[in-house]
Each structure stands twice: as structure tokens, then as C-alpha cells.
């Protein structure tokens, strides 16, 4: 997967070109976390990335639609694009407006996550079937919202890319006089979860979780438990890059040995 030297200079430019050509395509973005951007008639209808929960996982995590009902709806639609909204509302599970809100929120959240790190490359392919897709969004609107989100976070605690990799835990004790959303987030935050992990665990957007964490830090309710790095959260492929292995094995270190006869009671080294 490579970028062409004469081609568009970033993913945003790729999306803009597809928009002008009103194409159906899927853009594969390589990197950490990377993802797949589904474009129909030039508009972005869905983005899949391991860095942010998609519409399906947020819906099921919220419990608004039961797993069995969802499976039945998916089966009825046979992965036919655009039928999901009608099927959900026909069965009285979710209104068209609710479904639209869910899908739009997921696309913007995924776009934000992809913007946190420069991609390693991208490739435009023919349209890959996308079972869960919402209304089409223009690349311009996505870019504007992503810029707004990055600016909103960067003005707070720390740069957004650093916050995305941070593991936090609440300062003790957690005050009782807090909105329930904060209490739930503080209870879920342990020293092992990144904002992305918290978003998946709670069925919320990754950006919304990061925004709440920044706010909780301002309120003095969070403590950091890991050093801040620019590294991406736990979504990175677990394959070592070639050439980065340590060139030589670490020297063998033996434990210090006691020399017989050298030990003296009340030696000078006791201070």
C-alpha cells in the first residue's frame, strides 16, 4: 500500500477528489489505527476503524436494540446497503432519526480518530460492501468538524494525540456530587485503559470520552498512571518493524558473589 507521488497529498484530498467525481469507492487507510472509509456517490457513508466504536457496537452496547433482534434485522437485509434504516423502523426498533444520529456520530468519531496520526499510506479500491451505513456526508463537513474537535482538545490538558494514548485513573475518593456520566467514566477508568478502550467499554464515542477526561482532569479528578508518549493506543499491529530489533544480545549480568574470607563484621562499608 503506497501513496503515489503525483497523487493527492492526504486522505482528505483523496476524499475530495472522490466527491468531485461522485464515485463509489472504499479508501483503505494504513497506519495505526488505520481503517476503511466507505464512499458512495462521492459522500462518506461509513468509516470502520479499530480506534473508535462503530454504529453497530454503540447500538448494541447501549442495549437499545437486543442482539437477537439486531441479528434478525441484519439477516433480513442480507447486507443490502441502505435497507437497514427502513427495516429497523418497520420493526419498531429504532426510528429513522435515531438511526441517522447513530451513524452520523460514528462517522465523525472515526474521522477524528483517523486524524490523530498521519497515515502510513492509503489505497482507493472499488466499493467494499458496507452493511451499516448512514446518510452521506461531504468531505468538507467532515474536515471542518475534525478540525473543530482537534482544536477543542488541543486547547485543554494536552495534545489530542498524547491524550489518545494516555491511561488514567481517578483520584480517590470519587466525589459523589457529579453527573452520572462522569461517575460512570471514572469507575471505568483504571490504569490500563486508553480513551479508545473506555469508549468501547462504555459504548460511547472516543472523542466524547477524551473530552470528558480532559474536563475531569481540569476538575482535579484524574491522575496519570503512564508516561505521556506520542505512541498510538493499543490498536497498533503487534508486528515489530524490520530492522528495529536490538542488534546484539544484552550482556549477561551475573549476580554479585560473596568472596569467602572477605566478609568482616562491622565492615567499613556499613554506614
Amino acid at each position: 500500500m503506497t501513496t503515489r507521488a503525483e497523487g493527492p497529498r492526504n486522505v482528505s484530498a483523496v476524499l475530495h477528489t472522490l466527491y468531485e467525481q461522485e464515485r463509489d469507492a472504499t479508501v483503505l487507510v494504513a497506519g495505526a489505527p488505520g481503517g476503511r472509509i466507505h464512499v458512495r456517490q462521492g459522500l462518506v457513508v461509513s468509516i470502520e476503524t479499530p480506534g473508535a466504536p462503530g454504529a453497530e457496537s454503540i447500538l448494541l452496547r447501549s442495549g437499545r436494540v437486543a442482539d437477537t433482534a439486531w441479528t434478525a434485522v441484519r439477516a433480513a437485509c442480507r447486507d443490502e446497503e441502505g435497507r437497514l434504516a427502513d427495516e429497523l423502523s418497520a420493526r419498531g426498533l429504532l426510528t429513522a432519526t435515531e438511526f441517522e444520529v447513530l451513524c452520523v456520530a460514528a462517522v465523525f468519531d472515526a474521522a477524528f480518530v483517523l486524524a490523530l496520526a498521519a497515515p502510513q499510506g492509503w489505497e482507493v479500491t472499488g466499493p467494499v460492501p458496507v452493511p451499516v451505513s448512514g446518510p452521506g456526508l461531504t468531505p468538507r463537513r467532515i474536515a471542518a468538524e475534525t478540525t473543530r474537535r482537534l482544536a477543542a482538545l488541543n486547547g485543554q490538558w494536552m495534545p489530542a494525540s498524547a491524550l489518545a494514548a494516555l491511561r488514567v485513573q481517578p483520584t480517590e475518593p470519587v466525589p459523589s456530587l457529579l453527573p452520572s456520566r462522569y461517575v460512570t467514566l471514572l469507575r471505568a477508568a483504571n490504569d490500563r485503559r486508553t480513551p479508545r478502550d473506555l469508549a468501547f467499554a462504555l459504548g460511547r464515542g472516543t472523542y466524547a470520552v477524551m473530552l470528558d477526561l480532559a474536563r475531569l482532569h481540569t476538575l482535579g479528578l484524574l491522575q496519570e498512571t503512564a508516561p505521556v508518549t506520542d505512541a498510538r493506543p493499543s490498536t497498533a499491529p503487534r508486528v515489530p518493524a524490520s530492522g528495529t530489533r536490538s542488534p546484539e544480545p544484552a550482556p549477561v549480568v551475573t549476580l554479585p558473589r560473596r568472596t569467602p574470607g572477605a566478609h568482616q563484621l562491622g565492615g567499613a562499608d556499613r554506614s
Partner: protein
Amino acid sequence: MGRVSSVEDSLGHLLQVPGVTGVSLVDAVSGLSYGAAGPQNLGVDECGRLAVLIDERLHSAGAEGELETVVVTGARHQLVLRVLPGFGDPLLLAVALERERANLALVLRHLDVFPAREAA
């Protein structure tokens, strides 16, 4: 492209209530606007931040439960923020009113039935 979204279609109904000059549906946490209707354009991001701040401070002051409605009254205009439960994060319905023409009680009544009507 160009078609009215489901969200904007639902919001359009609220514009028929006398005195309502603008309606927006916004994510209460992220500030993302899902749609708007009416001539008056509300700063939805600010509306979201205002609701978050009010919610926070009310809890610090000892209030319990969830925030439902905020009514801000000025000399000529009113702003109503209604929190709607959503997936994970709540949504905020922001309604701008012209005070001379609007009946606040009637508007609140319409907001009460908004989710039910939207589902119909």
C-alpha cells in the same frame, strides 16, 4: 444529496409552533450538530457547553438526578435546551423563541412529545 434528512424533517415540525425561530439537534457532549431548521442559527457548540456546565455545577451544588430542561430568558428572546436520552451520550434539543409571540408552556409541551412524535 440535497434531500432533507430525517433529523431535519423532525425538527421542521417544531418550527410550526408559534414563536419558534430556530431549532437544532446537537450532541450534548461532543457538540456535533445533527441538523437545524429555521431562520435563527444557534451556536450549537456553545449550547452544548452551556448545558454541560450547568449540569456539572448543579451537581456540585447538591442537585440529584439528570438535567432535563434549561430555559434562558432575555428581554426579547428565550432559549430552551432540552436533554434527550440518546445512545451512550445524551442529545440536546436547542430551541430559540421570540418572547412576544411564544407561549413557553406550549413550547415545553411540544418538546415533551417530540421524541414520541418523531417515532410515529
